[in-house]
């Protein structure tokens, strides 16, 4: 994973971009490497902001397969349209 420091400024609470007026925050952004994910044993993510003392809780892991997004159930109106042969 890549560890990116996060900065606090008048414009942003947490930003990966350092500006002249910004100061380094107590948070770091953990970004998974390509083809991997990171996990704390529960959540599996590609990126997460954590406090510095919690970084050790996170580690690389295999990227879980993404299940296909299920098609939404047709509404009663849509079913009626299909039955009646009405196209939109």
């Amino acid at each position, binding site marked *: 994973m890549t560890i990116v420091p996060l900065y606090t400024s*008048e414009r942003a609470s947490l930003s990966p*971009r350092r500006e002249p007026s910004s100061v380094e925050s107590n948070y770091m952004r953990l970004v998974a490497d390509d083809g991997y994910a990171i996990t704390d044993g529960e959540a599996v993510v590609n990126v*997460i902001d954590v406090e510095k003392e919690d970084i050790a809780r996170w580690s690389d892991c295999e990227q879980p397969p993404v299940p296909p997004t299920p098609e939404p159930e047709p509404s009663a109106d849509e079913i009626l349209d299909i039955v009646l042969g009405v196209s939109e």
Partner: protein
Amino acid sequence: MDILSYILGKKAGGGGGEAVLINKNIDANGTYNASADSADGYKKVVVSVPNTYAAGDEGKVVSNGALVAQTSATYTSNDTYDTTKVNSVTVDVPMPDMTIYGHNGANNYTFYLADMVLTGDISLPQSRRTTMFNDCANLKSFIWETTGQVGGSAENSMVTFFKNCTALEHVSFPYTTGIPTAGFAEDIILGCESIKDFTVGSVGHPNTLGMGTQSGQFQLFRNIAYTFDVIIYANANSLADVPAVLKTGSPWGAINANIIYKSSVTGEVLT
């Protein structure tokens, strides 16, 4: 003017001859001389009929041959109206109920509104809400003033709501209670490469439900690399004071996002 007959007097010094008499129709004001009509024996005739109206006739119009006063009118339905007797028109046609049909996967329509504000809550089945504004290439700003939650259930689904709205820059849910942690809002701005800011809450309306689950599959901004601002209004006085539920999952999949917590009291950035 009615036919007027002029009786012409004897021609002065005419030596006893018959005076020439004529009939003449006069239908306009003016000065008339008998000699112009080859008549004789009279002086000029001046016709001067006044053509002004009485003070009380000001603003009146002729209707069926009579002067009638104009009135004001209010029209509440679309139609064609006779405005002859109307000097003031108020058009008060109520906006019709708008039925929005979501993108169904077959139509790549272009959305013609650049800035859209939805007021209040709308009730749509999940099948209509999911992918609702897909491929609306002209949509630039979207504000939904819903007071309910965003995502979190099928009836509040916003999965891939703005997918491929390539001009979309600003998304705001100023009055929502937040985006709870049960999914149904994942990939909400997928393909919105122009996005600049995504706002949840406003002054007086803190986000209390969070910004969605941190689980990879159901992240709001899963794998989005665009640089944009995630603005969250919190009932807090400092970054350290921001409720944990609003930090959980940050940055919700957006690798390069700026996270901006703002006070729901003052609107100031929390640091």
